């Protein structure tokens, strides 16, 4: 399958209340690598197996949460195409000049019906993954902590859910991979722009614009357990796990950064092709859909966002 249009989540900009504590968390404990800083105090990070200059931007703030999430598109032509789609859907867009985020090309910004700010961009400086492109080793040495491989997806809580999913599938050309329904009402949608089980997910909520978690890929269940050890060793507030999700099949653990933004690290989830059927879970089985082993909902996991 040729991958076109929107390629992947390019980066997430997270608000943090103490930049030094945040750097200890994301770099020393999770294994991200600092690649740059700017005069607004923002710090740019990447996971080891990403070639682009950054996938996480930490923004000093007096509150927690997600400033925006950005997707990378394949070409400038795609940028024009999706900008036009968003406008035709009736949503305003704004161009942000190249270099506003260091090393990133021009960005198209808009607010989704769920109340989140999203951006699209076509160009980002590539700095490599620490390995040669000829005869590469399987992994670089000296990666710290959990050794997160890549920024993978976000799960967001937003309102105007049905319109938001219509926006993502019609204007941004995502596909529905998996969902949770309560009768005729969709309460959760896992959307993909690739062959991943999800590139973004939304939960129907009364509150607009909230972050449930920003998620990072690990290589195996054993690495999820290794992450769990680090969470206890480093006194990181644990939310849930290690366990397996019914939804997406991923093996997972959830915890919070020092500003209260929830993170996930996970491994070995499912995949999807354009001809795959949509997978559906029902709310009368919600416990098993979310936590496959305990089959019990956890209040903090369901109710806490930033």
């Amino acid at each position, binding site marked *: 399958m040729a991958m076109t249009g929107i390629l992947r989540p390019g980066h997430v900009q997270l608000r943090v*209340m*103490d930049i030094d504590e945040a750097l200890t968390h994301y770099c020393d404990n999770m294994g991200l690598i600092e690649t740059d800083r700017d005069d607004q105090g923002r710090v740019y990070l990447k996971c080891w197996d990403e070639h682009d200059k950054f996938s996480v931007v930490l923004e000093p703030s*007096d*509150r*927690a*949460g997600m400033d925006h999430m950005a997707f990378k598109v394949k070409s400038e032509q795609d940028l024009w195409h999706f900008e036009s789609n968003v406008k035709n859907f009736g949503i305003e867009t704004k161009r942000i000049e190249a270099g506003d985020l260091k090393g990133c090309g021009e960005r198209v910004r808009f607010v989704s019906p769920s109340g989140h700010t999203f951006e699209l961009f076509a160009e980002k400086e590539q700095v490599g993954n620490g390995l040669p492109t000829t005869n590469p080793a399987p992994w670089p040495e000296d990666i710290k902590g959990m050794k997160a491989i890549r920024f993978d997806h976000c799960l967001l*809580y937003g309102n105007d859910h049905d319109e938001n999913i219509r926006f993502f599938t019609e204007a941004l050309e995502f596909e529905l991979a998996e969902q*949770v329904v*309560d009768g005729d009402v969709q*309460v*959760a949608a896992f959307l993909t722009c690739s062959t991943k089980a999800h590139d973004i997910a939304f*939960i*129907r*909520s*009364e*509150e607009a614009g909230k972050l449930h978690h920003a998620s990072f890929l690990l290589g195996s269940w054993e690495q999820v357990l290794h992450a769990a050890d680090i969470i206890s060793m480093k006194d990181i*507030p644990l*939310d849930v796990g290690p366990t397996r999700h019914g939804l997406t099949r991923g093996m997972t653990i959830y915890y*919070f*950064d*020092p*500003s*209260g*933004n*929830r993170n996930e690290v996970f491994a070995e989830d499912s995949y999807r092709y354009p001809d795959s059927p949509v997978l559906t879970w029902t*709310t*009368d089985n*919600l416990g098993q859909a979310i936590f496959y082993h305990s089959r019990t909902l956890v*209040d*903090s996991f*369901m*109710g*806490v*966002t*930033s």
Partner: protein
Amino acid sequence: MTFTVTIINTGETYICRETQHLLAGMVQLGKKGIPVGCRSGGCGVCKVKIIFGDYKAKKMSRDHVTEQEESDDIVLACRVFPQSDLTLEVIGKLNKAVNS
């Protein structure tokens, strides 16, 4: 130093060290009463009003605690370290995001 924390909503009391935030002290002893969320000052579910007692507080998200509230001793329990015995009232609650 250890101090006694009293939750007036439930009458629950527990011991908390001055080096522990109020939620850590509560959870470690298996006590309940204050909702537990991110434990990092970001989500706001553990919002309490300190009725009596002295404390030190770390930075809390302005989405959940305004400057006025902070000066009125309305704080997030996960950012508060006791400096004396404390009495508090629980204000925060967990949202039920998915109703089924």
